[in-house]
Structures are given as C-alpha cells and as structure tokens.
C-alpha cells in the first residue's frame, strides 16, 4: 500500500525525523492559509499523487512571493500530472503540500527495502541525493553504500556510523544523523514497511538534517495488524473497479486493452495476458480470482469485468485445482443471469470436475463459446474483438 508524501512526512515527524514545516491543502484558500501559517516566502508547492517524477512533470514549484504562490497553487491543484510512473493518462492532483523553502547545502539519499535474495531489510545510502536511485545503481553502483539488518540482533550502532561517515556529513551532524537513521529503521520495522525512502535527505545551509521528500510503502500482508495505516489509504488514488474488486478479495488490475480476462491463480493469469497479447489481442485487465474462489467470488469478478465499458470480449481461463470447474460454472451462470451479456464470452475449462462444469454451462442456455485449448481461446478472443 502506498501513501502520499505529506502522510509519510507526518509519520517521519512521529518518529522524530526532521521535516520542513508545512501542511497539505485541497483548495486555494486552504493553501493560502497554510502559506500564511509558515511566515514569509519562499514556499514550495508539491503535488500529492502516488507517483515519482513529480518535479520533472511540473508538479513541484517554488514561489518567491505570495502572488507567485497563488498562481503556482492554481496551476498545480486540479492539473493532470504526467510522470514516467503515472502512464500517459496521468493523475489528477487533488491535494498539494505547502512547505517552507529550505536552503540546501547538500542532497543525500537514504532508503530501506527488503532484500529478497538475502531475506532481510537492507539500508541504502548515497551522496547522490535527489536523483533516481535506480539510475545511480546502474551508472555508479560504487556510490551506494549498503547495510543489511541482521534478523537476530537487529540494526546496530556501528552500521549507522558506517552510513554516516560514508555520507560525509559535517561533524556537527554525526550524532543527529545516527539518530535519524536509527529512527527510520524503527519506523520501517514497526510499521511493516516494504519501502521507506528519503530522497533527498538534505543538509541545510544552517547545518540541519531534514527529510525534504518522503516515500513510505507498506507490506499489504501485514496491514491486518496496522489498522491506523489502513486509514491513510486514499481511495481517489485507486481505480474504482480495483476498489470494488478489493471488497471481494479479488486481485484486479486495470490495463489498457479491451479483452476482459478472468483466471484462477496469479501465474496463470499473467500467462493468459501474455498469450492474448502474443496472439494479437490486448487485455483490459488482470483478474486473479484465487485458488479457492467460491461461486459468489466468480460472479463478482465477472460483474466487475463487464462493468468496464471498454471490454469487447471476455476470456475466462480456469484450471480447476481447489477451485472446481462445476463451482466456476455455477458462478458464471449466476452472474450472467443478472446482466445482459452484450459481448462474446469465451470459456476455457480444465481440471477438477471439468466434465460436470462443461455440462452445467451447456445446460444453462447461456450464450458463450467453449474453447478446448488455451491457444485456441486466445486466438479466438483476439479475432472476435477485431471483428466487433
């Protein structure tokens, strides 16, 4: 789960990590109020969307006067911000973060992720702050310093010193730097994060350390024990169909094509998308109904796919394991009865109780095409979409 920068910074503040003064605002009057509370300019106006690259996209602006501030706010609030992470359609900016301007002497990078191969959290630090860390890793890997957290004993003081001295902080900041890193590790571990990033972490001209930006992602699997984090979720950041699917424990992801796809199992669902594309079609979505889906889950999944008006045909690909083919058939029939099926439906069934499943579908009087193989189903669905 992702949160906004202003929310991440509020968490930083709770953990004693210094941040610039500021406040989030959803309207020009609110923004003005926030600026006035900060005192004299300069101010920084930052678009709050769940995507990186906001600066390059024109979503972060500095204002030297109050007039300039007002026009910057009206430019950014409500704009559709396109960055390399939003996709070409961009994201609408509904909130801005208004902050004091901070005089910067040095920009650093500090981040924590889970290192999958080593099976423990890894801290990354670099003197090249403000840049895309992936780019730094690619071009100048020697500039990134890493420390791994031992699961048995936890993060140690010497590791904080290793990082701080590598970053080349002024002597006066060593102590507060060590405290900052230690607190960031604590935040990462206590809140079950999957990523925490301060980019840039700045040294101000008056020798203070400050998190100028903040990114915090949480492990979805651990949200059950962090109810307070769940409250930070911003529904406007999510696709409405994805939100709807979440309610029924369905893994739905909106894509750019026009073929609705429903599959059981994440791997098979991805492979089905690949196959559709290989045979010339474009999937409209990823939908994994899970290994143990009930008839009701199937019905909800089917309804969600059909409520996407871009969908010109639907491909259902099920390899029954725990999910039996007869249960799937019942779900499809139930769902299809409740809607007017206006697009072709292609079903490929295999696995547990496949004969019973096919029999139920045949007796249902529903209009659909049963395909004996996956290849044929993918080909067929591509052709049907082109014809329509």
């Amino acid at each position, binding site marked *: 789960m992702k949160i906004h920068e202003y929310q991440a910074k509020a968490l930083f503040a709770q953990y004693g990590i210094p941040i610039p003064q500021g406040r989030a605002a959803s309207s020009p009057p609110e923004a003005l109020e926030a600026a006035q509370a900060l005192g004299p300019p300069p101010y920084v106006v930052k678009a709050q969307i769940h995507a990186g690259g906001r600066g390059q996209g024109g979503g972060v602006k500095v204002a030297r006067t109050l007039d300039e501030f007002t026009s910057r706010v009206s430019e950014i609030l409500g704009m559709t911000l396109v960055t390399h*992470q939003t*996709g070409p359609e961009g994201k609408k900016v509904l909130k801005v973060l208004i902050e004091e301007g901070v005089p910067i002497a040095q920009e650093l990078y500090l981040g924590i992720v*889970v290192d*999958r*191969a080593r*099976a*423990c*959290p890894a801290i990354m630090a670099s003197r090249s702050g403000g840049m*895309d860390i*992936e780019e730094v890793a*690619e071009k100048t890997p020697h500039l990134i310093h890493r420390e791994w957290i031992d*699961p*048995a004993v936890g993060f140690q003081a010497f590791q904080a010193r290793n990082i701080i001295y590598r970053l080349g902080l002024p002597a006066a900041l060593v102590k507060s730097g060590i405290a900052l890193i230690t607190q960031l590790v604590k935040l990462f*571990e206590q809140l*079950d994060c*999957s990523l925490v990033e301060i980019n840039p972490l700045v040294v101000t001209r008056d020798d203070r350390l400050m998190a100028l930006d903040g990114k915090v992602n949480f*492990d*979805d*699997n*651990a949200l*059950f*024990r962090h109810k307070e984090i769940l409250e930070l979720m911003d529904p406007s950041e999510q696709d409405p169909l994805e939100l709807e699917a979440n309610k029924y424990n369905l*893994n739905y*992801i909106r*894509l750019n094509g026009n073929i609705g796809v429903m*599959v*059981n*199992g*994440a*791997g*098979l*669902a*991805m*492979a089905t*998308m*690949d*196959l*559709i*594309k*290989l045979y010339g079609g474009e*999937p409209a979505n*990823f939908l*994994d109904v899970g*290994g*143990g889906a009930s008839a009701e889950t199937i019905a909800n999944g089917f309804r969600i796919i059909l409520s996407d008006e871009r969908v010109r045909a639907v491909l259902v690909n099920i*390899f*029954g*394991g*725990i999910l039996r083919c007869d249960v799937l058939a019942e779900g499809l029939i139930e769902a299809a009865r409740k809607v007017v099926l206006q697009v072709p439906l292609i079903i490929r069934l*295999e*696995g*547990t109780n496949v004969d019973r499943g096919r029999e139920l579908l045949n007796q249902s009087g529903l209009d659909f095409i049963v395909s004996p*193989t*996956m*290849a044929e189903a993918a080909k067929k669905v591509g052709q049907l979409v082109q014809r329509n």
Partner: protein
Amino acid sequence: MSILVDKESRVVVQGVTGKEGSFHTKQMLEYGTKVVAGVTPGKAGQQVEGVPVYHTVADAVAEQGANVSIIFVPPAFAPDAIMEAAAAGIGVMACITEGLPTLDMVRVKHYLKGRSAVLIGPNCPGIITPGACKLGIMPGYIFQPGPIGVISRSGTLTYEVVDQISKQGLGQSTCLGIGGDPIIGLNFIDLLTLFAADPQTDGVVLIGEIGGTAEEEAAAFIKEHFPKPVVTFIAGQTAPPGRRMGHAGAIISGKSGTAQEKMAVLKAAGIRVVVDLTKVGEAVKELMG
C-alpha cells in the same frame, strides 16, 4: 526416486480442523498420501477423516512419527506454525497459506538457518511425487510418474504445464511450487541441486515470473552446475511495472524484475526459453522425450 517426499513420508497437517485443512486432508488421503496426524491447538483427541488430532506438532511427531508437514494455518499464525514444525524435528514443511507478513518471513528464514528442516512456500501449492505422496493442494489426477521435474513460482500455472507434459506422454518425478512471496524457503537453486542428484529426474521445467532475481540466479547456476536439460517459461511478459500481480513477489520494481530481462539472461546462459505457454509441453518432449 524423487526429491523431498516419497511413499515413506508421514504427513502431519497443521490447521487440520479448518475448512481448507480438513478438505485437503481428505484429498491427500484419497491420493494415497500417508496422513498420520493433524494439529490444532486445543483440539487434541478429535479426528479429521479418521486422522488423530494433537495440540502440538511435537506430540504428532512423538505419537505418530510424522516427518513432513503441510500448513494451512491462517497468515497471522503461520510463521509460528512453521517454526513449531522445524523445532519438532519435521524434515520438510510445505506452507500453503498466503498472506504472511514479509518481516515475519525474515525472522522465520533466520530461524531455519542451520536447522535440518526445509520449507516449501509460503503461498504455494505444495509438492507432489506422483503416485507416491501429495503434500499439497494440486489436482492429483493430472500428474503421472515419470522422469521430469517441475519447479514453479505459481500454482495453477504449474498445473497447466504438468497437464501439457502428461499429455505428451511424459510423467513427472517430483513437482513443486516454491511460492509467490518475496521471501520463501527453498529456491530454484536448492531444488535444482536436489534434482541434479536424483537419478529418476532426466530434465527439469522451471516456471518463473516477474519480480526479484531468482530466475537470473538460476540461469547462472544451471550454466555452471546443472547437467540435465532445462525448459523455462516466464509469466508476466505484459505485466505493467510497479503493480503487484496477484503474488506479493510478482512486481516489477522500476526497471528490474521484468520478464524480458529474465528471458534474455536465461537464453544467454544457453537455456531453452518458451515464449508461448501452450508450447511448453512440446518443448519438453523435444528436449527430454
């Protein structure tokens, strides 16, 4: 021969009285698996499908000689269940449960270091040695004994591939899903090492997906150390970056973990990469038939 489980495996089902646990206990028994005990704390003395239930795994080991376990315990308690099994002397644990917190798995992984117990999963379909032992939730009837080993990060995709292999007239030595999470027990390399030493296995099918670098590491290992033919397939060639594709571990982070990159690395190592999922069976027949 086979790897990890065989006819002698004595299974304890952790979370046996739950809906999933009891359903699959029945399924495993019907397949011929020796399910000798179940564990649900507080429910010792009960029976599920004729299988005696104990409070602890230690009791199941002491009373019934259980030596492998399958875990259906809910995600909040599954990390504890894995460690309980390892401490009780279980040799192979398959954790079916999906949704274990990643940082819990960091601790579990650490706990298992230096112990003899090995973990399959979590978030996996388990392991099957066709005709001998099914320690998992896969549909048993699609498997048949034979010379092909199958290792996969996905459940239903494994069934799809095994079905294709079986329809080519080839059977399987052992098939398993290693799990769709970022941190898992046995990885591709651990299993390739076991398959290399298994005389029944003539070749291996490796099914990967986006996210992480497990496939790249496997490619380097196969090139240097694995003497048998390998066929690979990578799911997620059309997955968008930054999105979690069903599995917690199936996510392209920035530019890394893409299917294209994995396929290129495998190909560069001289390994057969099948692009069209429906052609995996044919490729296996061609290389290993």
